């Protein structure tokens, strides 16, 4: 990664500001994504993720600061930007009546690819998306996961240096979601810079770096593992046959900051300073539930940072 990080950024935001009326949707946002880096943007609904992505790809003009893709200012670059950027918004429209091949041909023409270049590129993209044997199927007849992979292939036809994806796996089942992620890693290994917004915390944890957006501001940014290491609270797992009763009883114990059903039991986040008191009360209350410490995960980080920032 070291030589990758020293090269010039594929995507960059410097002090981006965007208002809608009196609402400040994005406030002083700076970030930088290197070639071969996978960067995840997470945050509660309404935090400004989609606005930030739209500013970066030049679909919105900032009220302050600037965004650059491969060095070119996003909102001013026009066609030059389109050549170095792939963008997949939440609602990505392909032509439902056209086959996979025909959709690719349409986008190939749009980007002015030569026929040799087009053929090579299509063979490569259909290969890595495992769509080759479906190439005659109409887009409307594809499953959700295959449709997303075709949309991704269309966005990558012209060999962009940066790819921006707005919640690419919404509505995609767990198996297809994993396939899409394997595909993203293949692309990143080839040197593509990827910026994506996601509501899935397990996906965020698999990014090289994540930025946590809250109220339009970047309130944390680091490698997911580093954010988990910096987590100050303690996580416990409570095994309980009667989960609802356990939840009610644990709610008022000292230091409990968050409590949620998790698999067969409950996950409890306890402030470190109160952990001793929490454990004592848990033991003395003659609770018939089993308590054990567990490693905090990225979702814990997200939840507690979001709650703290509110």
């Amino acid at each position: 990664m070291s030589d990758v990080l020293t090269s010039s950024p594929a995507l960059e935001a410097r002090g981006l500001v965007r208002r809608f009326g009196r609402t400040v949707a994005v406030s002083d946002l700076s970030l930088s994504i290197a070639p071969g880096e996978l960067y995840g943007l997470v945050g509660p609904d309404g935090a400004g993720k989609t606005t930030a992505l739209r500013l970066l790809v030049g679909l919105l003009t900032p009220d302050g600061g600037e965004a650059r893709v491969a060095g070119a200012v996003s909102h001013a670059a026009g066609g030059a930007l389109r050549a170095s950027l792939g963008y997949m918004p939440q609602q990505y429209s392909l032509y439902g009546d056209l086959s996979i091949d025909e959709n690719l041909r349409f986008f190939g023409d749009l980007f002015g690819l030569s026929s040799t270049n087009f053929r090579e590129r299509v063979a490569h993209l259909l290969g890595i998306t495992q769509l080759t044997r479906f190439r005659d199927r109409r887009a409307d007849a594809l499953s959700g996961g295959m449709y997303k992979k075709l949309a991704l292939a269309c966005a990558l036809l012209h060999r962009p240096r940066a790819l921006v994806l707005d919640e690419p796996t919404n509505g995609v089942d767990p198996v297809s979601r994993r396939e899409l992620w394997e595909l993203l890693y293949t692309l990143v290994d080839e040197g593509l810079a990827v910026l994506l917004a996601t509501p899935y915390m397990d996906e965020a944890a698999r990014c090289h770096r994540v930025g946590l957006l809250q109220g339009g501001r970047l309130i944390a940014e680091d490698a997911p593992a580093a954010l988990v290491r910096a987590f100050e609270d303690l996580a416990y797992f409570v095994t309980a046959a009667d989960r609802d009763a356990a939840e009610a009883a644990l709610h008022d114990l000292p230091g409990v900051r968050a409590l949620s059903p998790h698999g067969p039991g409950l996950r409890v986040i306890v402030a470190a300073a109160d952990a001793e008191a929490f454990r004592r009360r848990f033991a003395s209350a003659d609770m018939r539930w089993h308590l054990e410490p567990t490693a905090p995960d990225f979702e814990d980080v997200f939840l507690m940072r979001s709650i703290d920032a509110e």
Partner: protein
Amino acid sequence: MPSEPETVVDVRGLTRRFGAFVAVNDVSFSVTRGEIFGYLGANGAGKSTTIRMLCGLLAPTDGRATVAGADIAREPGRVKRSIGYMSQKFSLYADLTVAENLDFYASAYALSGRLRAARMDEALELAGLADRRDALTRELPGGLRQRLALASALLHRPPVLFLDEPTAGVDPLARRAFWRVIRELARGGTTLFVTTHHLDEAELCHRVGMMVDGRLVALDTPAGLKATHVPGTMLSVGTGAGGEAGTRAVMAALAGMPGVHGWQPFGLRVHVRVDPELAGPGRLAARLAERGVATADVEATEAGLEDVFLALVRR
């Protein structure tokens, strides 16, 4: 749940064909009052087709089903009056205010007078929007829009509620708040039929059915599904500071290791299903170290429904 469970949804041999394609193939199950029933499967497995039939929107090709006592083929109108339905595409008018949207649904359900006013107030309360009744719906954050869609679907107090991917694209905090409401509704006796791709949510269902290619291939409690479909010991392996590269190194080292049945990345960790002889403290870590992954921390973990899903769908 009541001691004598009352069947609210009863499905027998339900089948739907589209031309030569069998979207739903001989599916049978029943759901009892106050149950949260999860209906899972890959995209295109037949989940939405089942829901459309159970809501009286699509006639079955074969088989039968009753919902709240009404036959879906012969009495689709009665079915529609006794259910609430909410889909991933929130069925709200973005250019109307919160109150106007509720008003629209109250009219659709023919609520009038004091009952109408009372139900609308309760809906605003449920959605947490009592102080924002004049806000434009499109200006609400996704989580609140989703609560409003849920409250709209409940205005006529249906005994059965169908939720088709209600939390797609919703952030973790809002998803938790949404599920608190779902569990509260179930405790109050509402029967809930839910599809989701978030398998942590499926863990909150009383029972879960798994659809693969139109067939119901498994139906049990979450604990029962795990015991049947992902037996053995599940270990969770992390590499601390290794991040994604560390995760991939662990997976590479697991390939071909005797006693290892399978593995899946989960966030920053890898879930590994192993034979009992690999389950003892330090054993898997030692094997990983032999293969060049020295920094692995290994802890016992519970199999999740995602493990079950992957086992069934990838078979």
